[in-house]
Protein backbone atom coordinates (compact mmCIF):
# COMPACT_ATOMS: atom_id res chain seq x y z
CA UNK A 1 0.00 0.00 0.00
CA UNK A 2 2.72 2.37 1.03
CA UNK A 3 4.88 1.32 -1.90
CA UNK A 4 2.06 2.04 -4.31
CA UNK A 5 1.52 5.44 -2.71
CA UNK A 6 5.20 6.27 -3.00
CA UNK A 7 5.17 5.29 -6.66
CA UNK A 8 2.05 7.32 -7.34
CA UNK A 9 3.52 10.42 -5.77
CA UNK A 10 7.07 10.01 -7.01
CA UNK A 11 7.16 13.54 -8.42
CA UNK A 12 5.95 15.16 -5.27
CA UNK A 13 8.43 13.19 -3.21
CA UNK A 14 11.23 14.20 -5.54
CA UNK A 15 10.19 17.82 -5.19
CA UNK A 16 10.20 17.44 -1.42
CA UNK A 17 13.69 15.95 -1.42
CA UNK A 18 15.00 18.75 -3.63
CA UNK A 19 13.44 21.43 -1.42
CA UNK A 20 14.75 19.90 1.79
CA UNK A 21 18.21 19.58 0.22
CA UNK A 22 18.08 23.18 -0.93
CA UNK A 23 17.02 24.26 2.55
CA UNK A 24 20.16 22.67 3.96
CA UNK A 25 22.21 25.34 2.17
CA UNK A 26 20.26 28.24 3.62
CA UNK A 27 22.62 28.95 6.55
CA UNK A 28 25.52 29.33 4.09
CA UNK A 29 23.89 31.84 1.82
CA UNK A 30 21.86 34.17 4.04
CA UNK A 31 22.10 36.32 7.13
CA UNK A 32 21.37 35.00 10.62
CA UNK A 33 18.05 36.82 10.52
CA UNK A 34 16.80 34.77 7.60
CA UNK A 35 18.15 31.59 9.14
CA UNK A 36 15.99 32.36 12.17
CA UNK A 37 13.03 32.94 9.88
CA UNK A 38 13.82 29.56 8.32
CA UNK A 39 13.91 28.01 11.78
CA UNK A 40 10.50 29.38 12.53
CA UNK A 41 9.08 28.10 9.24
CA UNK A 42 10.45 24.64 9.97
CA UNK A 43 9.23 24.63 13.55
CA UNK A 44 5.77 25.79 12.53
CA UNK A 45 5.56 23.26 9.71
CA UNK A 46 6.62 20.42 11.97
CA UNK A 47 4.19 21.48 14.70
CA UNK A 48 1.48 21.79 12.07
CA UNK A 49 2.22 18.29 10.78
CA UNK A 50 2.13 16.86 14.29
CA UNK A 51 -1.19 18.61 14.85
CA UNK A 52 -2.63 17.35 11.60
CA UNK A 53 -2.07 13.70 12.51
CA UNK A 54 -5.18 14.01 14.65
CA UNK A 55 -6.67 17.33 13.58
CA UNK A 56 -6.32 17.05 9.83
CA UNK A 57 -6.56 13.31 9.36
CA UNK A 58 -9.25 12.48 11.91
CA UNK A 59 -10.96 15.86 12.22
CA UNK A 60 -10.32 16.28 15.95
CA UNK A 61 -9.14 19.88 16.18
CA UNK A 62 -7.05 20.36 19.28
CA UNK A 63 -6.95 23.95 20.51
CA UNK A 64 -4.43 23.09 23.17
CA UNK A 65 -1.39 21.43 21.59
CA UNK A 66 0.85 24.08 23.13
CA UNK A 67 0.44 22.09 26.35
CA UNK A 68 2.64 19.41 24.82
CA UNK A 69 5.27 21.92 23.75
CA UNK A 70 5.37 23.14 27.34
CA UNK A 71 5.38 19.68 28.88
CA UNK A 72 8.20 18.54 26.62
CA UNK A 73 10.22 21.68 27.14
CA UNK A 74 9.98 21.66 30.92
CA UNK A 75 10.34 17.89 31.35
CA UNK A 76 13.56 17.92 29.34
CA UNK A 77 14.70 21.22 30.80
CA UNK A 78 14.40 20.17 34.44
CA UNK A 79 15.95 16.80 33.69
CA UNK A 80 18.92 18.28 31.84
CA UNK A 81 19.54 21.02 34.36
CA UNK A 82 19.24 18.78 37.41
CA UNK A 83 20.82 15.54 36.24
CA UNK A 84 22.85 16.11 33.11
CA UNK A 85 25.31 18.84 34.00
CA UNK A 86 28.39 18.78 31.81
CA UNK A 87 26.99 16.42 29.19
CA UNK A 88 24.90 18.67 26.99
CA UNK A 89 24.47 16.37 24.00
CA UNK A 90 23.71 13.23 25.97
CA UNK A 91 21.35 15.32 28.07
CA UNK A 92 19.70 16.70 24.95
CA UNK A 93 19.26 13.25 23.41
CA UNK A 94 17.76 11.82 26.57
CA UNK A 95 15.77 15.01 27.11
CA UNK A 96 14.28 14.62 23.64
CA UNK A 97 13.10 11.12 24.49
CA UNK A 98 11.86 12.21 27.89
CA UNK A 99 9.98 15.20 26.50
CA UNK A 100 8.26 13.00 23.94
CA UNK A 101 7.53 10.34 26.55
CA UNK A 102 6.06 12.73 29.11
CA UNK A 103 3.87 14.43 26.53
CA UNK A 104 2.74 11.10 25.14
CA UNK A 105 2.03 9.85 28.64
CA UNK A 106 0.00 12.92 29.53
CA UNK A 107 -1.96 12.48 26.32
CA UNK A 108 -2.61 8.82 27.04
CA UNK A 109 -3.97 9.72 30.48
CA UNK A 110 -6.57 12.14 29.15
CA UNK A 111 -7.08 10.44 25.77
CA UNK A 112 -9.87 8.08 26.64
CA UNK A 113 -12.29 10.51 28.25
CA UNK A 114 -11.47 13.51 26.13
CA UNK A 115 -11.72 11.77 22.77
CA UNK A 116 -15.33 10.96 23.48
CA UNK A 117 -16.00 14.65 23.02
CA UNK A 118 -16.50 15.81 19.48
CA UNK A 119 -16.17 18.99 17.49
CA UNK A 120 -16.12 22.17 19.50
CA UNK A 121 -16.23 20.31 22.82
CA UNK A 122 -13.01 18.48 22.11
CA UNK A 123 -11.40 21.71 20.95
CA UNK A 124 -12.44 23.56 24.09
CA UNK A 125 -11.52 20.75 26.46
CA UNK A 126 -8.02 20.74 24.99
CA UNK A 127 -7.82 24.49 25.39
CA UNK A 128 -8.84 24.05 29.02
CA UNK A 129 -6.27 21.33 29.63
CA UNK A 130 -3.49 23.44 28.18
CA UNK A 131 -4.51 26.34 30.43
CA UNK A 132 -4.57 24.14 33.53
CA UNK A 133 -1.10 22.81 32.79
CA UNK A 134 0.24 26.29 32.08
CA UNK A 135 -1.17 27.63 35.35
CA UNK A 136 0.21 24.72 37.34
CA UNK A 137 3.59 25.03 35.67
CA UNK A 138 3.66 28.69 36.50
CA UNK A 139 2.51 28.45 40.10
CA UNK A 140 4.11 25.33 41.52
CA UNK A 141 7.66 26.21 42.45
CA UNK A 142 9.41 22.94 41.64
CA UNK A 143 8.54 23.40 37.95
CA UNK A 144 10.36 26.73 37.86
CA UNK A 145 7.83 28.05 35.40
CA UNK A 146 7.68 31.63 36.58
CA UNK A 147 11.35 31.89 37.49
CA UNK A 148 12.53 30.21 34.33
CA UNK A 149 15.13 27.64 33.42
CA UNK A 150 18.44 28.18 31.66
CA UNK A 151 19.13 25.17 29.46
CA UNK A 152 22.60 23.77 28.77
CA UNK A 153 24.11 25.21 25.60
CA UNK A 154 24.64 22.92 22.67
CA UNK A 155 27.31 23.38 20.05
CA UNK A 156 28.68 21.27 17.23
CA UNK A 157 30.94 21.59 14.20
CA UNK A 158 31.57 25.21 15.03
CA UNK A 159 28.09 26.09 13.78
CA UNK A 160 26.51 29.33 14.89
CA UNK A 161 23.58 28.63 17.25
CA UNK A 162 20.89 29.65 14.81
CA UNK A 163 22.38 27.37 12.14
CA UNK A 164 22.64 24.49 14.58
CA UNK A 165 18.98 24.71 15.56
CA UNK A 166 18.03 25.22 11.96
CA UNK A 167 19.59 21.84 11.16
CA UNK A 168 18.08 20.11 14.18
CA UNK A 169 14.67 21.39 13.18
CA UNK A 170 15.26 20.43 9.56
CA UNK A 171 16.02 16.85 10.58
CA UNK A 172 12.99 16.75 12.85
CA UNK A 173 10.75 18.14 10.12
CA UNK A 174 11.97 15.60 7.58
CA UNK A 175 11.37 12.73 10.00
CA UNK A 176 7.89 13.93 10.88
CA UNK A 177 7.03 14.43 7.22
CA UNK A 178 8.05 10.87 6.42
CA UNK A 179 6.08 9.55 9.36
CA UNK A 180 3.00 11.55 8.43
CA UNK A 181 3.21 10.35 4.84
CA UNK A 182 3.49 6.75 5.98
CA UNK A 183 0.48 7.14 8.27
CA UNK A 184 -1.60 8.91 5.65
CA UNK A 185 -1.10 6.15 3.12
CA UNK A 186 -1.55 3.18 5.36
CA UNK A 187 -4.64 1.46 6.65
CA UNK A 188 -4.77 3.65 9.71
CA UNK A 189 -4.71 6.72 7.46
CA UNK A 190 -7.78 5.49 5.60
CA UNK A 191 -9.45 4.73 8.91
CA UNK A 192 -8.73 8.22 10.21
CA UNK A 193 -10.19 9.71 7.06
CA UNK A 194 -13.35 7.69 7.63
CA UNK A 195 -13.50 8.96 11.20
CA UNK A 196 -13.19 12.53 9.97
CA UNK A 197 -15.96 12.06 7.45
CA UNK A 198 -18.43 10.23 9.68
CA UNK A 199 -17.34 8.54 12.85
CA UNK A 200 -20.45 6.45 13.44
CA UNK A 201 -20.41 5.05 9.94
CA UNK A 202 -16.71 4.33 10.27
CA UNK A 203 -17.48 2.27 13.35
CA UNK A 204 -20.21 0.39 11.51
CA UNK A 205 -17.69 -0.48 8.82
CA UNK A 206 -15.27 -1.99 11.31
CA UNK A 207 -12.83 0.90 11.72
CA UNK A 208 -11.39 0.60 15.25
CA UNK A 209 -12.18 4.24 15.90
CA UNK A 210 -11.21 4.43 19.57
CA UNK A 211 -7.85 2.76 19.07
CA UNK A 212 -6.97 4.89 16.06
CA UNK A 213 -7.93 8.16 17.70
CA UNK A 214 -6.03 7.39 20.88
CA UNK A 215 -2.96 6.26 18.93
CA UNK A 216 -2.90 9.42 16.85
CA UNK A 217 -3.53 11.66 19.84
CA UNK A 218 -0.56 10.15 21.64
CA UNK A 219 1.65 10.25 18.55
CA UNK A 220 0.73 13.86 17.92
CA UNK A 221 1.44 14.78 21.54
CA UNK A 222 4.78 12.93 21.67
CA UNK A 223 6.03 14.57 18.47
CA UNK A 224 4.89 17.98 19.68
CA UNK A 225 6.69 17.32 22.97
CA UNK A 226 9.93 16.45 21.16
CA UNK A 227 9.64 19.63 19.09
CA UNK A 228 9.10 21.51 22.33
CA UNK A 229 12.46 20.22 23.57
CA UNK A 230 14.27 21.48 20.47
CA UNK A 231 12.44 24.77 20.66
CA UNK A 232 13.36 25.17 24.32
CA UNK A 233 17.04 24.69 23.51
CA UNK A 234 16.83 27.17 20.68
CA UNK A 235 15.50 29.73 23.14
CA UNK A 236 18.14 28.90 25.73
CA UNK A 237 16.00 30.23 28.57
CA UNK A 238 12.38 29.16 29.05
CA UNK A 239 9.51 30.31 31.22
CA UNK A 240 5.89 29.24 31.30
CA UNK A 241 4.87 32.09 29.07
CA UNK A 242 7.52 31.34 26.46
CA UNK A 243 6.53 27.71 25.84
CA UNK A 244 2.93 27.31 27.03
CA UNK A 245 1.69 29.79 24.48
CA UNK A 246 -1.94 29.61 23.39
CA UNK A 247 -0.73 31.42 20.30
CA UNK A 248 1.16 28.27 19.26
CA UNK A 249 -1.97 26.18 19.49
CA UNK A 250 -3.86 28.60 17.32
CA UNK A 251 -1.02 28.98 14.84
CA UNK A 252 -0.98 25.24 14.23
CA UNK A 253 -4.61 25.46 13.19
CA UNK A 254 -4.25 28.65 11.20
CA UNK A 255 -1.27 27.37 9.21
CA UNK A 256 -3.06 24.14 8.42
CA UNK A 257 -6.21 25.98 7.44
CA UNK A 258 -4.31 28.37 5.23
CA UNK A 259 -2.37 25.63 3.48
CA UNK A 260 -5.19 23.14 3.30
CA UNK A 261 -6.32 20.97 6.14
CA UNK A 262 -5.63 17.23 5.97
CA UNK A 263 -2.84 17.58 3.42
CA UNK A 264 0.90 17.30 4.02
CA UNK A 265 1.95 20.35 2.03
CA UNK A 266 -0.69 22.41 3.82
CA UNK A 267 1.33 23.09 6.96
CA UNK A 268 4.42 23.95 4.89
CA UNK A 269 2.57 26.38 2.65
CA UNK A 270 0.71 27.93 5.55
CA UNK A 271 3.76 28.34 7.76
CA UNK A 272 5.94 29.70 4.99
CA UNK A 273 3.38 32.31 3.99
CA UNK A 274 2.37 33.39 7.47
CA UNK A 275 5.86 33.42 8.97
CA UNK A 276 7.34 35.34 6.08
CA UNK A 277 4.43 37.73 6.10
CA UNK A 278 4.49 38.40 9.83
CA UNK A 279 8.24 38.27 10.43
CA UNK A 280 9.66 39.75 7.27
CA UNK A 281 6.99 41.90 5.70
CA UNK A 282 5.37 43.11 8.91
CA UNK A 283 8.48 42.72 11.04
CA UNK A 284 8.77 46.45 11.56
CA UNK A 285 5.08 47.08 12.15
CA UNK A 286 4.98 45.46 15.57
CA UNK A 287 2.20 47.73 16.77
CA UNK A 288 -0.36 46.45 14.27
CA UNK A 289 0.99 42.93 14.06
CA UNK A 290 -1.92 41.41 15.92
CA UNK A 291 -4.48 43.37 13.96
CA UNK A 292 -3.11 42.17 10.66
CA UNK A 293 -2.92 38.58 11.83
CA UNK A 294 -6.53 38.76 12.94
CA UNK A 295 -7.64 40.33 9.69
CA UNK A 296 -5.80 37.68 7.69
CA UNK A 297 -7.51 34.98 9.71
CA UNK A 298 -10.92 36.44 8.97
CA UNK A 299 -10.14 36.82 5.28
CA UNK A 300 -8.79 33.31 5.12
CA UNK A 301 -11.93 31.67 6.44
CA UNK A 302 -14.13 33.78 4.18
CA UNK A 303 -12.13 33.59 0.97
CA UNK A 304 -10.48 30.18 1.06
CA UNK A 305 -12.18 27.99 3.64
CA UNK A 306 -10.38 24.96 2.20
CA UNK A 307 -6.99 26.60 2.15
CA UNK A 308 -4.61 27.15 -0.71
CA UNK A 309 -4.65 23.53 -1.81
CA UNK A 310 -8.43 23.62 -1.84
CA UNK A 311 -8.40 26.80 -3.87
CA UNK A 312 -5.95 25.32 -6.38
CA UNK A 313 -8.05 22.18 -6.67
CA UNK A 314 -11.21 24.20 -7.24
CA UNK A 315 -9.51 26.33 -9.89
CA UNK A 316 -8.13 23.26 -11.62
CA UNK A 317 -11.53 21.63 -11.65
CA UNK A 318 -13.07 24.73 -13.15
CA UNK A 319 -10.29 24.75 -15.72
CA UNK A 320 -10.74 21.14 -16.76
CA UNK A 321 -14.50 21.53 -16.82
CA UNK A 322 -14.24 24.06 -19.60
Amino acid sequence: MLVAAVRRRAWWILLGVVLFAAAAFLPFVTTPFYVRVGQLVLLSSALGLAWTLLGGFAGYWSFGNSAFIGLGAFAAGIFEVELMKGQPWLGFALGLLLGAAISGLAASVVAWPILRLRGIYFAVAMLGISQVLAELNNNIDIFKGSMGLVLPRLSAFGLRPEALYFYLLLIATILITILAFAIQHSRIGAGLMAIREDEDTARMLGVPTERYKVTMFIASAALTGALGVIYAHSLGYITTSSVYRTEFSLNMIVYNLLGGIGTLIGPFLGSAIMVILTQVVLGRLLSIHMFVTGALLVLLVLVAPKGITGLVRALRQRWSAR
Partner: protein
Amino acid sequence: MSEPILRLDHVTKRFRGLVATNDVSFEVPEGSICSLIGPNGAGKSTIFNLVTGYLPVSEGSIHFQGRRIEGTPTTDLARAGIARCFQIAKPFPELSVHDNVRIGALFGRDGARDIGAVTRDAMALAGLTERAQTPASELTVGYLRRLELARAIAARPILLLADEPCAGLNATETEDVIDILRDVRARGVTVLLVEHDMQAVMRVSDRIFVIDAGRKIAEGPPEAVANDPHVIAAYLGTDEE
Protein backbone atom coordinates in the same frame (compact mmCIF):
# COMPACT_ATOMS: atom_id res chain seq x y z
CA MET B 1 -31.23 -27.80 10.25
CA SER B 2 -27.92 -26.12 10.81
CA GLU B 3 -27.30 -23.28 13.23
CA PRO B 4 -29.00 -20.05 12.06
CA ILE B 5 -26.71 -17.14 11.19
CA LEU B 6 -28.68 -14.78 13.39
CA ARG B 7 -30.98 -15.60 16.27
CA LEU B 8 -32.89 -13.15 18.48
CA ASP B 9 -34.37 -14.50 21.71
CA HIS B 10 -36.94 -12.41 23.55
CA VAL B 11 -35.19 -9.18 22.70
CA THR B 12 -36.62 -6.04 24.28
CA LYS B 13 -35.42 -2.47 23.89
CA ARG B 14 -36.76 0.41 25.93
CA PHE B 15 -36.14 4.11 25.36
CA ARG B 16 -37.16 5.62 28.67
CA GLY B 17 -40.90 4.90 28.63
CA LEU B 18 -41.18 3.73 25.03
CA VAL B 19 -40.82 0.03 24.28
CA ALA B 20 -39.41 0.10 20.74
CA THR B 21 -38.72 -3.63 20.59
CA ASN B 22 -40.95 -5.88 22.62
CA ASP B 23 -40.00 -9.50 23.25
CA VAL B 24 -38.99 -10.20 19.66
CA SER B 25 -37.60 -13.59 18.65
CA PHE B 26 -36.69 -14.85 15.19
CA GLU B 27 -34.06 -16.81 13.34
CA VAL B 28 -32.36 -16.01 10.05
CA PRO B 29 -31.16 -19.22 8.35
CA GLU B 30 -27.82 -19.28 6.57
CA GLY B 31 -27.90 -18.32 2.91
CA SER B 32 -31.42 -16.90 2.98
CA ILE B 33 -32.93 -13.52 2.29
CA CYS B 34 -35.25 -12.63 5.14
CA SER B 35 -37.28 -9.47 5.48
CA LEU B 36 -38.53 -7.42 8.39
CA ILE B 37 -41.66 -5.50 7.52
CA GLY B 38 -44.00 -3.31 9.47
CA PRO B 39 -45.52 0.15 9.50
CA ASN B 40 -43.45 3.30 10.09
CA GLY B 41 -42.05 3.46 13.58
CA ALA B 42 -42.67 -0.23 14.18
CA GLY B 43 -39.14 -0.72 15.42
CA LYS B 44 -37.36 -2.23 12.44
CA SER B 45 -34.34 0.07 12.38
CA THR B 46 -34.09 -0.32 16.12
CA ILE B 47 -33.62 -4.06 15.66
CA PHE B 48 -30.78 -3.31 13.24
CA ASN B 49 -29.26 -0.96 15.80
CA LEU B 50 -29.39 -3.73 18.39
CA VAL B 51 -27.90 -6.38 16.12
CA THR B 52 -25.01 -4.12 15.10
CA GLY B 53 -24.30 -3.22 18.72
CA TYR B 54 -25.06 0.41 18.02
CA LEU B 55 -27.54 0.40 20.90
CA PRO B 56 -27.47 -1.91 23.93
CA VAL B 57 -30.37 -4.35 24.34
CA SER B 58 -32.52 -3.99 27.45
CA GLU B 59 -33.42 -7.67 27.71
CA GLY B 60 -32.96 -10.88 25.78
CA SER B 61 -30.10 -12.28 23.77
CA ILE B 62 -28.76 -12.13 20.22
CA HIS B 63 -26.66 -14.91 18.69
CA PHE B 64 -24.57 -14.49 15.56
CA GLN B 65 -23.19 -17.77 14.18
CA GLY B 66 -24.02 -19.36 17.50
CA ARG B 67 -22.08 -16.78 19.50
CA ARG B 68 -23.73 -14.34 21.91
CA ILE B 69 -23.08 -10.84 20.74
CA GLU B 70 -24.98 -8.39 22.93
CA GLY B 71 -22.49 -5.97 24.44
CA THR B 72 -19.91 -6.57 21.71
CA PRO B 73 -18.70 -3.24 20.28
CA THR B 74 -19.95 -2.27 16.83
CA THR B 75 -16.44 -2.31 15.39
CA ASP B 76 -15.86 -5.90 16.46
CA LEU B 77 -19.18 -7.04 15.04
CA ALA B 78 -18.33 -5.44 11.73
CA ARG B 79 -15.06 -7.29 11.71
CA ALA B 80 -16.87 -10.51 12.60
CA GLY B 81 -18.94 -10.13 9.43
CA ILE B 82 -22.04 -8.04 10.09
CA ALA B 83 -22.41 -5.24 7.55
CA ARG B 84 -25.16 -2.70 7.36
CA CYS B 85 -26.66 -0.25 4.88
CA PHE B 86 -28.32 2.72 6.48
CA GLN B 87 -31.89 3.77 5.90
CA ILE B 88 -30.61 7.30 5.32
CA ALA B 89 -27.53 6.85 3.16
CA LYS B 90 -24.39 7.87 5.02
CA PRO B 91 -21.57 8.13 2.54
CA PHE B 92 -18.24 9.74 3.34
CA PRO B 93 -19.18 12.89 1.45
CA GLU B 94 -15.75 14.28 0.62
CA LEU B 95 -14.37 10.98 -0.66
CA SER B 96 -14.84 9.52 -4.13
CA VAL B 97 -17.00 6.48 -4.70
CA HIS B 98 -13.87 4.39 -5.06
CA ASP B 99 -12.40 5.61 -1.77
CA ASN B 100 -15.70 5.05 0.03
CA VAL B 101 -15.83 1.47 -1.13
CA ARG B 102 -12.14 0.97 -0.45
CA ILE B 103 -12.68 1.82 3.21
CA GLY B 104 -15.25 -0.95 3.33
CA ALA B 105 -12.68 -3.31 1.85
CA LEU B 106 -9.83 -2.18 4.11
CA PHE B 107 -11.81 -2.79 7.24
CA GLY B 108 -14.87 -5.02 7.47
CA ARG B 109 -14.24 -8.74 7.85
CA ASP B 110 -10.63 -9.82 8.25
CA GLY B 111 -8.73 -11.68 5.60
CA ALA B 112 -8.85 -9.69 2.37
CA ARG B 113 -5.57 -9.82 0.55
CA ASP B 114 -6.05 -7.69 -2.51
CA ILE B 115 -7.87 -4.55 -1.45
CA GLY B 116 -7.86 -3.12 -4.98
CA ALA B 117 -9.52 -6.20 -6.46
CA VAL B 118 -12.14 -6.40 -3.71
CA THR B 119 -12.95 -2.72 -4.18
CA ARG B 120 -13.33 -3.01 -7.95
CA ASP B 121 -15.38 -6.15 -7.61
CA ALA B 122 -17.80 -4.56 -5.14
CA MET B 123 -18.19 -1.49 -7.34
CA ALA B 124 -18.84 -3.68 -10.37
CA LEU B 125 -21.45 -5.72 -8.51
CA ALA B 126 -23.29 -2.56 -7.51
CA GLY B 127 -22.96 -1.03 -10.97
CA LEU B 128 -20.74 1.84 -9.87
CA THR B 129 -17.67 1.28 -12.00
CA GLU B 130 -18.20 4.32 -14.21
CA ARG B 131 -18.73 6.54 -11.18
CA ALA B 132 -15.59 5.42 -9.38
CA GLN B 133 -14.04 8.88 -9.29
CA THR B 134 -17.20 10.89 -8.55
CA PRO B 135 -17.26 12.50 -5.10
CA ALA B 136 -19.95 10.86 -3.01
CA SER B 137 -21.51 14.24 -2.29
CA GLU B 138 -22.45 14.58 -5.97
CA LEU B 139 -24.33 11.28 -6.33
CA THR B 140 -28.07 11.00 -6.90
CA VAL B 141 -30.24 9.04 -4.46
CA GLY B 142 -30.17 5.97 -6.66
CA TYR B 143 -26.40 5.89 -6.78
CA LEU B 144 -26.12 6.62 -3.07
CA ARG B 145 -28.11 3.44 -2.41
CA ARG B 146 -25.74 1.52 -4.63
CA LEU B 147 -22.79 3.07 -2.84
CA GLU B 148 -24.16 1.96 0.52
CA LEU B 149 -24.50 -1.56 -0.85
CA ALA B 150 -21.08 -1.59 -2.52
CA ARG B 151 -19.36 -0.40 0.63
CA ALA B 152 -21.08 -3.10 2.66
CA ILE B 153 -20.30 -5.77 0.08
CA ALA B 154 -16.64 -4.76 -0.01
CA ALA B 155 -16.49 -5.65 3.66
CA ARG B 156 -17.11 -9.29 2.64
CA PRO B 157 -19.85 -9.75 5.23
CA ILE B 158 -21.45 -12.97 6.39
CA LEU B 159 -24.68 -11.15 7.19
CA LEU B 160 -25.85 -8.04 5.37
CA LEU B 161 -28.45 -5.84 7.04
CA ALA B 162 -30.06 -3.62 4.42
CA ASP B 163 -32.35 -0.91 5.78
CA GLU B 164 -34.80 0.18 3.08
CA PRO B 165 -32.35 0.00 0.19
CA CYS B 166 -35.14 0.84 -2.26
CA ALA B 167 -36.52 3.88 -0.44
CA GLY B 168 -36.87 6.82 -2.81
CA LEU B 169 -36.08 4.78 -5.93
CA ASN B 170 -38.21 4.40 -9.05
CA ALA B 171 -39.32 1.05 -10.42
CA THR B 172 -36.26 0.30 -12.56
CA GLU B 173 -33.86 1.38 -9.86
CA THR B 174 -35.70 -0.81 -7.36
CA GLU B 175 -35.36 -3.69 -9.78
CA ASP B 176 -31.60 -3.10 -9.97
CA VAL B 177 -31.21 -3.09 -6.22
CA ILE B 178 -33.18 -6.32 -5.91
CA ASP B 179 -30.87 -7.88 -8.49
CA ILE B 180 -27.85 -6.73 -6.52
CA LEU B 181 -29.26 -8.30 -3.36
CA ARG B 182 -29.82 -11.56 -5.20
CA ASP B 183 -26.25 -11.49 -6.48
CA VAL B 184 -25.03 -10.90 -2.98
CA ARG B 185 -26.99 -13.87 -1.72
CA ALA B 186 -25.64 -15.98 -4.58
CA ARG B 187 -22.19 -15.37 -3.13
CA GLY B 188 -23.25 -17.00 0.09
CA VAL B 189 -24.06 -13.85 2.04
CA THR B 190 -27.15 -14.00 4.23
CA VAL B 191 -29.37 -10.95 3.86
CA LEU B 192 -31.79 -9.39 6.32
CA LEU B 193 -33.84 -6.75 4.59
CA VAL B 194 -36.12 -3.98 5.79
CA GLU B 195 -38.28 -2.69 3.00
CA HIS B 196 -41.60 -0.95 2.49
CA ASP B 197 -41.93 -1.89 -1.18
CA MET B 198 -44.20 -4.92 -0.74
CA GLN B 199 -43.80 -6.21 -4.25
CA ALA B 200 -40.05 -6.28 -3.90
CA VAL B 201 -40.25 -7.93 -0.50
CA MET B 202 -42.65 -10.60 -1.67
CA ARG B 203 -40.52 -11.49 -4.66
CA VAL B 204 -37.15 -11.60 -3.03
CA SER B 205 -37.72 -12.98 0.48
CA ASP B 206 -37.48 -16.55 1.64
CA ARG B 207 -39.04 -15.66 4.94
CA ILE B 208 -40.75 -12.58 6.36
CA PHE B 209 -41.10 -11.30 9.92
CA VAL B 210 -43.82 -8.78 10.56
CA ILE B 211 -43.27 -6.23 13.31
CA ASP B 212 -45.93 -3.93 14.65
CA ALA B 213 -45.47 -1.53 17.55
CA GLY B 214 -42.32 -3.36 18.59
CA ARG B 215 -43.87 -6.84 18.61
CA LYS B 216 -43.51 -9.62 16.11
CA ILE B 217 -47.05 -10.35 14.98
CA ALA B 218 -46.45 -12.86 12.20
CA GLU B 219 -43.77 -14.89 10.49
CA GLY B 220 -43.56 -17.19 7.54
CA PRO B 221 -42.96 -17.50 3.80
CA PRO B 222 -44.26 -14.60 1.67
CA GLU B 223 -47.59 -16.17 0.60
CA ALA B 224 -48.51 -17.14 4.14
CA VAL B 225 -47.70 -13.73 5.53
CA ALA B 226 -49.56 -11.93 2.77
CA ASN B 227 -52.71 -13.83 3.61
CA ASP B 228 -52.37 -13.65 7.37
CA PRO B 229 -55.39 -11.76 8.72
CA HIS B 230 -53.34 -10.21 11.55
CA VAL B 231 -50.94 -8.75 9.07
CA ILE B 232 -53.66 -7.46 6.83
CA ALA B 233 -55.35 -5.82 9.77
CA ALA B 234 -52.30 -4.39 11.49
CA TYR B 235 -50.15 -3.51 8.58
CA LEU B 236 -51.51 -3.61 5.08
CA GLY B 237 -54.87 -2.34 6.23
CA THR B 238 -53.65 0.74 8.01
CA ASP B 239 -50.65 1.69 5.93
CA GLU B 240 -52.11 2.42 2.52
CA GLU B 241 -49.36 4.56 0.99
